[in-house]
């Protein structure tokens, strides 16, 4: 059994909470005490009494309940005999773009919800764009509320085609379009008989079977050193291990490796994993690597291969999603955390701001809260990076305020 990490985007109006509630309820993940609590709340908020409001299963913080909105990313868990699922449940409104970006950053699959009655909206276009920008490899367009259009095939086809035209400008490696009714449970867990014209799987069946193993980059070895382990005990007197999480690729005992930025080479003599010594390890394992030589290598450095290296550079060209009230402007000094390396950097230039609804690019002097734009940074020390679309692990970075230490935004590196 493996884990599938997914993100859902949409608003309460699209039936997103009902959809997640339905998944939890129908896979028997929701527990009786949770369902009781929801049934009590359904009566209190004036639901129609008989039917429990599944959306309340995903209810969160006090302020959210008071305002009837979702503010922050909530993480939900459910499992079937085939897979464990981690859902990053993100709010849909434009002022919460940053939360959706957070949820999408780790997702292998994203579900974008569309109301069958209204078709594509600005919001659904924005969600698809963000998934493409964040490099989510699998997208499900969930055309919901089919019960309200009498399960009509033509309504489904029209939205499907509209989305296809829009998504030609995006990078979506794998797209599935599923008609459903979360409220009625059609095509969520069980395939429905009400839409004989649809031959595809139910949403859950798709989630259980979607092939994600090939999405992990096992080609380019990148091992950012996180921590150096030196026990200095009698038993392990000479032990010196480089601990870290393999960002991408595979590492084997006997491999020739090069340390960056020093450029010194050595050979892997042993790999220790949580399960004991192993001959090979692959992304995203957390391991400790030992080398034949005592070379200059510490936290923030990267072990890689001589003939397949990341770009070592101080000039960063990136798309950023800005997540703080204070504006991003040229000349601003920030900290950049990339893999295990945190370095001071200077914002050189803002090339454009992207309209997340239309993909239109416009010149900009600054980026505000929830804006997405292309910028150039100059770092005080080199970063060992890859293009984000090739590796989210070595292509992504966060921007930190050097004074308040708050996280200001996330960036996706573009290499020419």
């Amino acid at each position: 059994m493996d884990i599938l990490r997914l993100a859902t985007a949409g608003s309460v109006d699209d039936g997103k909470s009902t959809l997640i509630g339905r998944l939890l309820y129908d896979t028997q993940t929701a527990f009786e005490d949770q369902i009781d609590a929801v049934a009590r709340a359904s009566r209190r908020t004036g639901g129609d009494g008989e039917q429990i409001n599944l959306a309340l299963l995903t209810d969160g913080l006090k302020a959210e309940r008071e305002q009837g909105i979702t503010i922050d990313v909530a993480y939900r868990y459910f499992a079937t005999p085939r897979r464990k699922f981690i859902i990053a449940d993100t709010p849909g409104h434009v002022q919460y773009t940053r939360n959706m970006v957070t949820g999408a950053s780790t997702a292998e699959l994203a579900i974008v919800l569309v109301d069958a009655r209204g078709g594509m909206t600005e919001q659904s276009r924005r969600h698809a764009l963000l998934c493409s920008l964040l490099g989510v490899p699998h997208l499900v367009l969930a055309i919901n509320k089919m019960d309200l259009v009498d399960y009509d095939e033509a309504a489904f086809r029209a939205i499907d085609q509209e989305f296809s035209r829009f998504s030609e400008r995006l990078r979506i490696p794998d797209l599935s379009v599923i008609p459903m009714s979360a409220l009625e449970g059609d095509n969520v867990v069980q395939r429905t008989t009400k839409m004989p014209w649809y031959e595809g799987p139910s949403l859950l069946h798709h989630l259980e079977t979607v092939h994600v193993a090939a999405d992990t980059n096992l080609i380019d070895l990148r091992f950012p050193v996180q921590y150096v382990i030196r026990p200095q005990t009698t038993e392990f007197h000479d032990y010196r291990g480089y601990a870290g999480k393999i960002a991408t690729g595979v590492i084997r005992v006997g491999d020739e490796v090069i340390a960056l930025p020093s450029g010194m080479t050595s050979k892997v003599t042993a790999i220790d994993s949580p399960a004991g010594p192993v001959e090979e390890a692959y992304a995203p394992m957390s391991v400790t690597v030992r080398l034949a030589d005592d070379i200059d290598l510490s936290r923030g450095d990267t072990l890689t291969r001589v003939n397949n290296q990341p770009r070592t550079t101080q000039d960063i060209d990136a798309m950023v999603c800005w997540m703080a009230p204070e504006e991003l402007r040229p000349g601003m000094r920030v900290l950049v955390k990339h893999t295990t390396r945190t370095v001071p950097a200077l914002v050189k230039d803002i090339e454009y701001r992207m309209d997340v609804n239309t993909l239109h690019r416009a010149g900009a002097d600054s980026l505000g809260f929830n804006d997405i734009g292309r910028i150039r940074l100059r770092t005080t020390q080199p970063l060992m990076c890859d293009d984000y679309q090739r590796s989210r692990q070595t292509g992504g970075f966060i921007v930190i305020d050097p004074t308040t230490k708050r996280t200001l935004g996330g960036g996706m590196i573009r290499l020419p």
Partner: protein
Amino acid sequence: MTTTMRLSHLAALEAEAVHIIREVVAETEQPGLLFSGGKDSVVLLHLAKLAFWPARVPFPVVHIDTGHNFPEVLEFRDEYVEEIGVRLIVGSVPEALAAGSLREPAGNVSRNALQTPVLLETIQKHRFDALFGGARRDEEKARAKERVFSVRDEFGQWDPKNQRPELWDLYNGLLEPGASMRVFPLSNWTELDIWQYIADRELALPPLYYAHERAVFERDGMLFADNEFLPRREGEDIRMEKVRFRTIGDATCTGAVRSDAVTNEDVLAEIVASRLTERGATRADDRVNETAMEDRKREGYF
């Protein structure tokens, strides 16, 4: 070749937790690990051991002792800490009460509310800037929205509306002076994952987690162990039952469930069949109201 290179769910959760633990040690000055002897903290301390093997765990463990603990748990705590070879720091509610820095509200036997000030005092005294906790997001709805690296202000308070965005696996471990962090490496684990991991890695737990004969009485639909800290009310008769505990906390607010599960496999089968969340089944402290956990966290609780 590539299709076999996919981690099982337990291996993936383990790798993620080890990464988080190492990241905290690399980025903070004075980390510590909150250890109660409960199953989640046992898994957490085990992962900390793996993260730095063959070196020692490079930080102390901290226990906030309410003075209302099950003796079996304290015994287990001391043995496990000894076995791992870490230093144990105890923040004691009874000591704080005796010293007068804390007062017990009249008529209230649960010391849950008293834990928070003692925790904050212990953090301050030992200058911890990061404390690991074994909390999981599946436990409770306020936890479902908390970050892995959860920043607390100088009063230890959590502000759910002002959390740092947490992208990819790039955790921001930097802090403003005075602030501190609670870090939850088990965020993405469920109760079932914890038990599968315990069974798979053969981790030892306090005996309370497995079915045993115990003198209990019933209150508010929950079974409580007869113990010196919890005065019985009228009509609450003691009887012997075969029970086990799904969570272990303060003896005054942690209930037991009827069970025949004596092995890890039995427990796993029981959890799969269970229709109640572990907190719903056995924690009186979360039953107070719908936002009990959120309110306590805002005040500095884990």
